[in-house]
């Protein structure tokens, strides 16, 4: 999938640590305007892959290529900031660059947390913090936005709106988005490509294609069905979202696939 106009690409990346293989011959690329999602089980090497691509950790073999002077906005999984550091949202926004107050407010408005401008970051909830971090990455007008488990610690309603936000960002900024998630169905519908990672690339391609692949079903098959049921159920409680129940099923998985999965599960 490596193309000449990709923002960032990794070819045949392997990472070994302490005699353990964390990543084995993984290739990935992200181009402008596309959302690439990496999913996989815990310990499958998702964060390791992000860090290898971003140059945050050394790779054992393979190649990472970034476009010249690529402007990256990075939203990490979690920040652990010591309470002795007095840091307001306003100050956090100018962490890696200088921006006017108007720009800062505009970026925070975009992610819906402009009212937190003067709050200290130590009093923010998990979801508010993610939105602030997203705004902080967006203010850079990044060509590539990298999000590591953006909905971690966010409640269910927050999760939906956060993903809607990420989708709208792609439309508005025309940037490439590289997303890591353990959560399948929320992510699926927005992604252009999904890479299913369990140390090696199990399967990759368009979301619908990946979901039908036997490798994916082996990894997520039964678990996927379990998590899907409550999702569908809870969707019904939020009429302001239109009819997301049907919507999700249309795009991410139709009932036919359920049956297929069950069958393959029985067969296996």
């Amino acid at each position, binding site marked *: 999938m490596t193309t000449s106009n990709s923002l960032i690409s990794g070819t045949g990346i392997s990472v070994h640590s*302490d005699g353990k293989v964390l990543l084995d011959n993984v290739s990935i690329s992200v181009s402008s305007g596309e959302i690439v999602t990496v999913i996989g089980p815990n310990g499958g090497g998702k964060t390791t892959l992000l*860090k290898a691509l*971003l*140059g*945050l950790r050394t790779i054992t073999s393979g190649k990472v290529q970034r476009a010249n002077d690529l402007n*990256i*906005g*990075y939203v*990490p999984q979690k*920040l652990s*900031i*010591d309470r*002795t*550091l*007095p*840091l*307001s949202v306003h*100050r*956090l926004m100018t*962490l*890696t660059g200088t921006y006017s107050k108007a720009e800062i407010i505009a970026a925070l408005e975009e992610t819906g947390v402009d009212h937190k401008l003067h709050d*200290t970051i130590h009093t923010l909830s998990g979801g508010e913090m993610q939105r602030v971090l997203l705004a902080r990455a967006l203010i*850079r007008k990044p060509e590539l936005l*990298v999000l590591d488990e953006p909905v971690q610690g966010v409640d269910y309603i927050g999760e939906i709106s956060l993903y809607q936000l990420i989708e709208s960002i792609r439309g508005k900024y025309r940037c490439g988005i590289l997303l890591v998630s353990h959560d399948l169905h929320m992510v699926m519908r927005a992604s252009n490509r999904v890479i299913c990672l369990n140390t090696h690339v199990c399967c990759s391609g368009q979301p619908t294609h990946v979901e039908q692949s036997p490798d994916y079903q082996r990894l997520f098959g039964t678990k996927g069905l379990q998590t899907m049921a409550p999702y569908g159920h809870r969707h019904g409680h939020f009429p302001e979202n239109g009819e997301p129940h049907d919507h999700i099923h249309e795009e991410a998985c139709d009932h036919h696939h359920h049956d297929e999965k069950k069958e393959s599960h029985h067969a296996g």
Partner: protein
Amino acid sequence: MLDDFFMRAMIGGVGIALVSGPLGCFIVWRRMAYFGDTMSHAALLGIALSLMLNLMPFWGVFSISIVIALALYGLEKLDRLSSDTLLGILSHASLAIGLIALSFMTWLRVDVMSLLFGDILSINKGDLTLIWSGGAIVLLLLFFNWRTLLASTVSHDIAAAEGMPIKRANLIFILLIALVIAVAMKLIGALLITSLLIIPAAAARQFARSPESMALLAALAACCSTILGLNISLVWDSNPGPSIVLGAFLIFLISLAMAPIVRSFRKN
């Protein structure tokens, strides 16, 4: 009437305080208090080394602190021991080796007490030049690397992913700690140096609302600590090194008592 040696002690002490306050903030924010302790305990080893090689104590202390810091970075990659344990090992090992090495040098009459707790009343004009020029270098380096140091304190991964020169900044940071320890060694001694880094920063935290204001307040608190401590030692005829630490502790207690008052004042 102030004697001349007391005036020199005051000027030297304030010179150290202006630097130790802001630098101490970073040590506190990065949860590196124990790290600073380890580097300063190694200073004793540095003194022994410079006596052996007939060097200026400054260079012995400066280089040994850096060696210990780099050794820590190297050993941390071992993964099998937590950095806390490693610090405990290196901190006390270097202190013990330093004391043993000094006890072997029977041809020299070394006052171990003054090495451990400082001898601020004996500083001469050469020491003052060293303190103020060394201090100026530290403050300049801190100023020009402020954004990178702060960004990597908040999130090493964000700063690195967004292209800030993290490695350089971290090396400079270690260099600055080593420089301050080497300069402050004579004033306050190997065992007490870190107190002048940490206690003023903790006092400043009570009132600070941004990293920058905390650094300035910490410099102020450290100056007050030094002046208060030296006056305590003058009145009580106590050892000046511990008296300065006592001064810092009193300033910290005052800051704790005043914090609620200042906060309610700000609200209205």
